[in-house]
Structures are given as structure tokens and as C-alpha cells.
């Protein structure tokens, strides 16, 4: 979400998830970060909860959230941002082997040790130590953020279109927002990879309208802590994630 729509995001989430201290810091630090990196826009992405501290995540884009080259940043105080690692597929696969239940510690330098995958047809190395891969928590956090963003982050259909000249996704200037009825239909929402939100596990993504805030809210049960929102009849929309970074693998049992 854009930081200016924080109250809407908090309403969608069900609670206020940025402390006033962090929020105040982000108000000044995000515009600075945007200038330093030359982004067209900075978004507050959400928060990965850790044991001793949380990772506040922001994302900067050149054109729109759909572009592949957007950059993620993290910090714990809302001010001291660091760019997140860009893990390759091997690292991502190794990260996936860290037990789900192992909560983030909150220490970016914490080291996880996982065993490497040996590609088929290759001899495993003689030295067992060579099989072990060390992953620091900032890399793990980067993997989780990327995974969540790819798996569930969504925008209203039509809000981002491909620019004919540049060939990249850009905000659609003709997009006038969704009507209330349309915003409550999953068909009006698409994931950042272009997949329709209707392809989510049936019943795991629910849209509801909050009359007191004139807001349409979508929450995912597969990724508890993910919420998207839009103000029907306006261009205002966004999403945020606040959670431990874990997918709810028990979701099939949990659906009411």
C-alpha cells in the first residue's frame, strides 16, 4: 500500500500494525529512499514478524508493482533501510527446506544451516561439510517476501496495463476504479503475475465490504496476514502483509 493509505490497510488487516514511531520514520525515510534510487513510487509492503524484532518491508518501483525489476528493502525501525538480497533459485530452494515452524529470529545475521540438494547424476561431494549451505536470515526473509508477493499480492483488474511504447506494465491512467459490486467479485482482482484471483483455493480468499469505512477488503487464509483493499469508485487500492511469512498448510481443515 502507499503509506498515505495506511489507515485503510490497517482496517483491512483488522488492526494497526505499524507503531507510530515506525510510521513517523517511514513518512520521511521512504521519500528519501525513493529519490536515492530514482523510483517512481515507494510502497509500504508490510511486516515479517520475528521473535526479537520485526522486519518492516518496503518496495520501490520504476513503473508499477507488476514489473519484475522492483526492489525490496527492510529495516526494523522504519528509517535504516537496507536493500534485500535477490536470492537465486538454488538459494530459494534451500530456504524452502528450513522448517516452516522455525520462526524468524529478528536478527538479520542469524545463520540457518540446511543441506544442499545434489542434482541428479552428480556425485555427492566427499566432504560432508560441502553439502551444508549456510543461509543468513536476511536472505531467508528476502525469499519469503518474494514468495508471498508472487503467490498472493493482487491489484484490481485494469489498474495496471502494458505501456505500448515501453512494453512494461504501468499504472493505467484510464482506470476509474471498481464499482462496489465488481470489487466484491474475485474476478475483478488479479495477482501480480496476471493470474486471476479466482484461481485461489476456493473459499480461502474472501471479499467483504466494510460500510463504515466504505472499503472492500480481501483476506487470504492460505497466507494468513495478507489483506488487499480498494475504495469502490476510486483509484485507491493496495495490499499489505503482516505475519510470520508462513503459508497455512492446514488451510483445507480450517475453512469454515
Amino acid at each position, binding site marked *: 500500500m502507499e503509506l498515505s493509505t495506511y*489507515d485503510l490497510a490497517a*482496517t483491512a488487516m483488522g488492526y494497526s500494525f505499524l507503531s507510530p514511531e515506525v510510521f513517523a520514520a517511514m513518512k520521511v525515510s521512504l521519500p528519501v529512499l525513493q529519490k536515492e534510487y530514482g523510483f517512481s513510487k515507494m510502497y509500504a509492503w508490510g511486516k515479517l514478524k520475528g521473535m526479537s524484532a*520485526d522486519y518492516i518491508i518496503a518496495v520501490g518501483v520504476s513503473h508499477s508493482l507488476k514489473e519484475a525489476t522492483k526492489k525490496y528493502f527492510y529495516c526494523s525501525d522504519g528509517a535504516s533501510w537496507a536493500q534485500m538480497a535477490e536470492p537465486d533459485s538454488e538459494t530459494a530452494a534451500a530456504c524452502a527446506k528450513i*522448517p516452516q515452524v*522455525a520462526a524468524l529470529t529478528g536478527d538479520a545475521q542469524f545463520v540457518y544451516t540446511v543441506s544442499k540438494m545434489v542434482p541428479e547424476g552428480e556425485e555427492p561431494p566427499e566432504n560432508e561439510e560441502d553439502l551444508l549451505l549456510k543461509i543468513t536470515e536476511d536472505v531467508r526473509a528476502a525469499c519469503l517476501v518474494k514468495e508471498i508477493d508472487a503467490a498472493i499480492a493482487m491489484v484490481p483488474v485494469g489498474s495496471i496495463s502494458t505501456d505500448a511504447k515501453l512494453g512494461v506494465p504501468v499504472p493505467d491512467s484510464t482506470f476509474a476504479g471498481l464499482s462496489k459490486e465488481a470489487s466484491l467479485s474475485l474476478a475483478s482482482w488479479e495477482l501480480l503475475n496476471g493470474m486471476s484471483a479466482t484461481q485461489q483455493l476456493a473459499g480461502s480468499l474472501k471479499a*467483504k465490504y466494510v460500510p*463504515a469505512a466504505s472499503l472492500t477488503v480481501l*483476506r487470504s487464509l492460505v497466507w494468513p496476514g495478507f489483506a488487499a483493499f480498494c475504495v469502490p469508485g476510486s483509484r485507491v487500492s493496495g495490499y499489505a502483509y503482516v505475519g510470520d511469512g508462513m503459508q497455512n498448510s492446514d488451510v483445507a*481443515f*480450517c475453512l469454515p
Partner: protein
Amino acid sequence: MESALVAAKAKLLKADSSGVSLHDHLSSVLDKIIVEDSDNALAMFEQISLAVKQQHVVPRKEYLQAVPEPAPAALVAKRDVLRAKPELPEEVEFPNVPEENSFFEGAGHALLRDEAFLLRAAMAKLVAAKGLRTVRFFGKVLGTEADYWIVEGAYAEEPEAAEDEGGAAAADAKLVPLEGNGTGTNKFRYWVCNELGEEWVELPPAKPAAIVAARSIKKHFTGRLSTPIVVHPPFPGSEADYLRAQVARILHSTYVAPGGMFSFEEDSEDEPKPIVPTEEWEAPLPEEMGELSAWVHHYSTIRKVGRTTKPPKAEEEDGEEGGEEEEEEEEEADHLLNDLSADPPIFESDDTPVPAWSVRTAGHGAYAVAYALSTAWPGAIAFCSTKPSVKFANVYIGYGLENTGKTFTPKPMPEIAREPDDVGEEEDTPLDAENAVLKELEEKRMVEEAEAEEADAE
């Protein structure tokens, strides 16, 4: 000539889609002008015509947009709650909701600021309407269709009807009896609503069977109290009972207080001993509160049976069974006033263990605030601020589900009952033998009657 006139008149008399002809309209307009006797009829002609037209024209829907929609009922209800400002008796323990919320905000786990003020007004309305002695914001449980706002409280005077309810439920002797009002898991009552401003609905009392069943399921809340809970093993009750069970489990597992602030009442003869505020207690420094050992549990563990205390002794018939159970129960430890470092971790591992709690501090120096966050019940959080005076509070904002540290495994289905063994055939009793037995019984009865008659005669 005449036919042309007829044709023209027929044209004027032709009704349009709304059933009115130009002839009718003009007649009505002229009628209105004459009746109202207007001086400037010519200048007003268009307005008069329009006014007449509006009487018989059915407007099309798309022209209706100018009519404002009524304000959303939810907003009106909220405004009315904020307007009410009921007078509360001084003895009511009423928390400073917005202040507590501002402490929780520091941990990034709080209500929105405007919601906190609205909540205070809604709680005041509840206290005034029900005559409560104490009230506290328990928290928010997020549902798929709506969220629950949950308020905890106790009546100044118990309403009579409520006691009957408990009695009826306890009447089923097979079930473990509920804990009485004001004790154990039923120490408080709970009221819920989906949107602040709505009527508060009281939850049923906590039932041991529901608490036991809730431990073995993992189900999201919908936000509708009457939703049936479709699970295996079957859950006794609707979502209201499930919510009440989870509230009890959350309260007893995660409500924590600064260590030393409360102690057992040594003189009490009750078992377990009740806890009371310690008389001479020095508040710890904020950095001391940043340790797990500085926080203690404030409510007893809920036992396996679904109560905080052992159920009252069973009837003599099954005395033996009762005895065995009792021995088992002896082993269940109570975490009341134990510090949090004693809680078992939810995940054990050499390099990445996950303790049941994490603590952190925010702010600076003496005015720092310490927080304890539960990992077992994500969303349960407590704060403690020691300057200028000691303040602490607990709140829960989450999905109402426990983090067991394991993948959920549903209980296996019971084995399908097999066909019973065939019952062996028995030979028919011959009629003679049957008659002989009946005759004997009849004769015996007649003899007894005769003897009784003789005795009466004497």
C-alpha cells in the same frame, strides 16, 4: 375538413408510454391555471406544465440518482454510541481504553486510534445497560465474513435467569460439570459484536466438553455465532461455543502480569489459593521487564478435562473410576504465578528452537515499555510500563487459532463398526412346559391370596 379535425384530435388524444395524452396534459395544465388563478400564468407556464407532468410521469430509475442514499446503518449506529455518554457508577472498574491502546501501538499490534475511542463508548454502553462491576477489552478475533469484538466483564449482581442455564447444562450427569459463575473458566462473562455500535451479544458459559473438543480441531471463525462447526471429532455446539472455548483457552494461556505484583493469599482456605495484589511491592525497571522471567501467568492452567479445577467427586457408583482419574490429574501442574521462562517451547530444535514467548522493549530509559508476545497464540500480547506508575494490560488480536508448532493432523476416523456375530439359535420352549410354569405361578398367587384373606378375617 371535419375529418382533418378528428384526425388532429385523435393525435392529441394518443396516450404515450406513461398512459397520458397531450390532450389530458394540456387540460390539466389549463385546469391548474384557472383554479390557482395565477397572475403571471404565461411566465409560469413551463413550471406549471412541469409540475403537472411530474404528477403523472413515472420517473426512470437512472434519473433517481440525485436522491441521496441513506447513511450506512453501521455509521449511524457508531454515531449514536458516541452520542450516548452514559453516566457510570464510580465503583465500576473501567479501563482507560485509548491509553492502553496507545501502549499496544508501540508494539505495532493495536486497534486503530479512532476505534479505541469508539470501543470505549461501546463498552460504556454495555456497562450501563447490563449493570457490570468490571469490564475489560479482551480482544478481536478475525473471521472470514466478519470480525468479533470481544469484551470481558462481570455483573455487579448476577441476573437470575443465567443461573438456570448453568443448572440445566449441569443436569446431564455424563458431562463434566461447568465451572460456576465467577470461578475458573467462567470467572468472567463475554459479550461480542461484529461492528462497534451494534448490540452486544452475550456468549454462553465455557463448557468443559467444548474446551476439550476445541483443542483437537483447527477451524477459522466466520463471524456468525450460529454457524455450525462441522468437524471430526464432532464439536458440541455452534460457533458461539467454539468462540467461548477459544477465549477461555487464550485467557488462561496468555494473560500475564508483572512478576511479584500479585501473590497467593496465604490465609485463604480455598484450594487453589486465590491471588491478591502484593501489599509491598516495588515496581521493576523497564529493562528488567524485558526478561521472560519478569512476567508471570495470572490465571490457572485449564486441565485436560476442560476445567481449571478437578470436577466435583463423582457419585459412589463409579467411585473406583473416579479414583483412578484423580491420580492422573494430580500430575497436572498449574502455571498460575509461574514465570514465562517455564513455559515449554512450541518447537524444539538445536539451532532454531521456538520459545512460547518473546519479550521486547520499546522507547527510551525509564519510560520504556516492555512487551510480552505469545508465540503459541499469535496475536496475544501484554505491555508493562513502570513509570510514572505501574500499568499493564493484555489484549488478543488474531485469528483465534493456536500455533502448536506442528502440522495439523486430524484425529483418525473411528473404525467402521463390523457386522456383529450371528446370534445362536435357541430352541423353542414346548407349549406344555410353558403352561406348566404359568400354572405353577398362578397357583402360587392364589395360595398367597387365600392366606392373606384368612389373615384379614382373623
